């Protein structure tokens, strides 16, 4: 922890960065994302295992966009998001100083993108056991049960779009759900509108989701959204050997193909 603070302090003091993106203490026993612009404020910077928010999200927000240099305390999920954002031309390496934090909470020092790629490869990833169990449970259902399950699971959705807002990969200026003429997805949060919205979002994240679980965490009504995009990412990895968040240059499973892509359903 002290090492992280030391690095952050130095970066600010040397004016290499104008803002350090990290965490501070929040309400009650919560933690929350914080922006540090002065070296003396770094005392308030914290990192503990509650700091699971994917703060890579803020790299696309005004505060970071306007700064010449940004440092970010980056857990493996954040690092993967950064790499994927870079792969999708959303951020550039020059201004981002990644202060790596391993899955065990140890400081991994400053990572350039090359080092971040290595870091990303070596850090464990995967789904929480309960999510995995849920995927298996759903897969074991009959077709009708699966359909009913999801319609029911989505029905509490109020379309507050917290899932979208907290997802670093949902950076579109204008989301598909906001496209009208044609109105691809009903705005109303009725059952149909909810199913279409979440289906579209899962498709858009296929092969791009780094599986941080942020969508699920921020959902005020606790919909297990993350398993949708995770299931697809996992599938894409299996089928096309393509994984998001490992590479800082272009990679996207659906913007690529091989002549020998396997399927067993096209007649």
């Amino acid at each position, binding site marked *: 922890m002290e090492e992280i603070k030391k690095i952050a302090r130095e970066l600010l003091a040397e004016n290499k960065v104008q803002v350090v993106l990290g965490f501070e203490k929040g309400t009650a026993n919560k933690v929350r994302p914080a922006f540090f612009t002065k070296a003396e404020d770094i005392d308030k910077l914290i990192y503990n295992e509650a700091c699971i928010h994917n703060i890579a999200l803020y790299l696309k927000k005004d505060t970071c966009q306007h700064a010449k240099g940004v440092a970010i305390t980056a857990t493996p999920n954040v690092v993967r998001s950064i790499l994927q954002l870079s792969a999708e031309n959303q951020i550039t390496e020059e201004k981002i100083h990644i202060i790596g934090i391993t899955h065990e909470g140890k400081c991994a020092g400053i990572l350039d993108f090359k080092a971040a790629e290595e870091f990303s490869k070596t850090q464990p990833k995967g789904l929480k056991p309960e999510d995995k169990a849920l995927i298996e449970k759903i897969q074991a259902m009959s077709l009708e049960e699966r359909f009913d399950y999801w319609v029911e699971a989505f029905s509490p959705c109020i379309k507050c779009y917290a899932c979208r807002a907290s997802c670093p990969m949902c950076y579109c200026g204008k989301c*598909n759900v906001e496209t009208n003429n044609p109105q691809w997805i009903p705005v109303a949060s009725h059952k149909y509108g909810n199913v279409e919205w979440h289906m579209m979002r899962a498709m858009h994240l296929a092969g791009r989701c780094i599986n941080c679980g942020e969508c699920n965490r921020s959902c005020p009504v606790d919909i297990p959204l993350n398993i949708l995009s995770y299931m697809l990412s996992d599938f894409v990895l299996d089928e096309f050997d393509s994984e998001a968040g490992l590479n800082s240059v272009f990679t996207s499973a659906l913007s690529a193909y091989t002549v020998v892509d396997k399927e067993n359903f096209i007649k």
Partner: protein
Amino acid sequence: MARIGVFICHCGENISATVDCPKVSEVAAKFPGVAYSVDYKYMCSDPGQSLVVNAIKEHKLTGIVVSACSPRMHEPTFRRACAEAGLNPYLCEMANIREHCSWVHEKGDRTDQKAIDVVRMMVEKVKRNNALMSIKVPVTKTALVIGGGVAGIQAALDIANAGHKVVMVEREPSIGGHMSQLSETFPTLDCSQCILTPRMVEVAQNPNITLYTYAEVESVEGFVGNFNVKIRKKAKSIDETLCNGCGMCTTKCPQKKIPNEFELGMGNRPAIYVPFPQAVPNVPVIDRLNCTYYKNGKCKICEKFCQPKAIRFDQEDEIIEVAVGAISICTGFDVKKTDFFPEYGYGKHKDIIDGLQFERMASASGPTLGAIRRPSDGAEPKKIVFVACAGSRDPAKGIEYCSKICCMYTAKHAILYKHKVHDGTAYIFYMDIRAAGKNYDEFTRRAIEEDNAQYIRGRVSSIYERDGKLIVIGTDTLMNHETVEIEADMVVLATAGVANQGAEELAQKLHVSYDQHRFFSEAHPKLKPVETNTAGIYLAGACQSPKDIPESVAAASGVAGKISCLFSSSELTREPLIAFVDRIAAPDYSSCTGCFLCQPVCPYNAIEKEDIKDRAGNLIKSLAYINPGLCQGCGTCVAICKSKSIDIDGYTNQQMYSEVDALLNS
């Protein structure tokens, strides 16, 4: 408010026998937005078209649906009718109720209902059609011909003679290509160089042709009509403007033992050389890898003897930029070398040569002055074995295809051999004799009947050397698959014709596709045999697949015709059914977020990066931009775009969505 006209065609009885056309017309008249609906016997006939034109004028129609045959049949007809009536031609849609309805279904309510649905869906679509203007692209009337073999020469001359400028780039010091290496040509046995060299000279003298030899294409940018090409002119170490081609330098060069590429290693050349006596241009180049001066820093003998003082040891590669409107790839092919064949000794037996080497040997200007001699000891071979399909049609060798020219040149080789070695015997192992072509089969018959070539149908499993002879072990499939063993003096392998070295890199520079054998791919194997998928880039000759001389020349003339068509007007008109990225007001400029996940899916490299900058020149945003000159309108980018920032005219999101919506909600 839309005012759509619906025109239901009976197509004689083709449609009306199955579909109740008046009923369809009646129902269509009640669709929201339909201002006029009519049915008629032959909509494509003159009176039918007049009906359309008059209705557009009279009812002030804002779009029409012609419900008739397939749009692949008559869409242009009715678009013209729209234009005649003063309606934008792209405000016309066709509902296919013939091929997709009356011809494939039985008469009945469900068939009528289908026709009605199809019309409804097209009405909903056409309501959302945009008036489009065809795209005009300026054309630079200069062609680039890459490769100076017979195909390149033919293409360049034809284009130049049509009055257009041509820039020709040849990798070697001289143009001429493989044809200049050949002895005689089948099926006429006329001397290859005798017919080629006048054409080479013509290229050099044609005022419309700029020739760069010892040069390669460095990069290509742009699109049809507007390519920018960088050419690397490698340093010849000679001032071409001063050299008078006297040849003194080449005779005085002390380095004489460099294997001559033109003779395929069967002769030697000096370090400063012209590849062959009839070379065009007749300007030597210094082979810097082998030149004593470049190796050791001392020599410069050529410089001493050069009267016009044309030697330039410090010459550097030069990059030349040219603007061209079309490109013809004529880079030719190569043949597999004998070292490709493990079963024939990995090229270690000197007396096993390939067909091209035999050509040089048989050529009067070749290393043996036309005499057939064993490379190992110079003896005249009395028994010679020709192996056809050496590598070709052999999946185990990774070459599944037929190299096409080998059957003919092998027959020619057997004939030439017999003409030169009267008491010799030629054996030919073959899989099939493929002699399709004018006077071709007659030619192979001649080899068999007049020149007594011994054709054995079977393949050769191995060749080994024993006591100075080559033991050829093969099988005769027409003689009960018996093993045949021939003690030969010499073996000629008709090795497979393969893509030229560097074909892949060139294809990538030009953004054209190539097949698994690295041959360039044509746009359509039948109907667009000389076009590539990239508009404005064409293919001629053996760079596409092995071809003989007449085929190469025909393709080259075809390319020249295509390019002359392209150059016939100063502007190029293209269908405007292409993709575009949306633009909105600042501060967003576009809903495009610049992820560029669309970029790799474009087969035409039409998606470019467009930087939006403020007045001070600071980058605000990078957006995708679709180059209308390159886009061919497949729409794959549209479906890839997550923020729906890309759309495609003719098949917009609105149109497709409405079609689906209308189709089902009857």
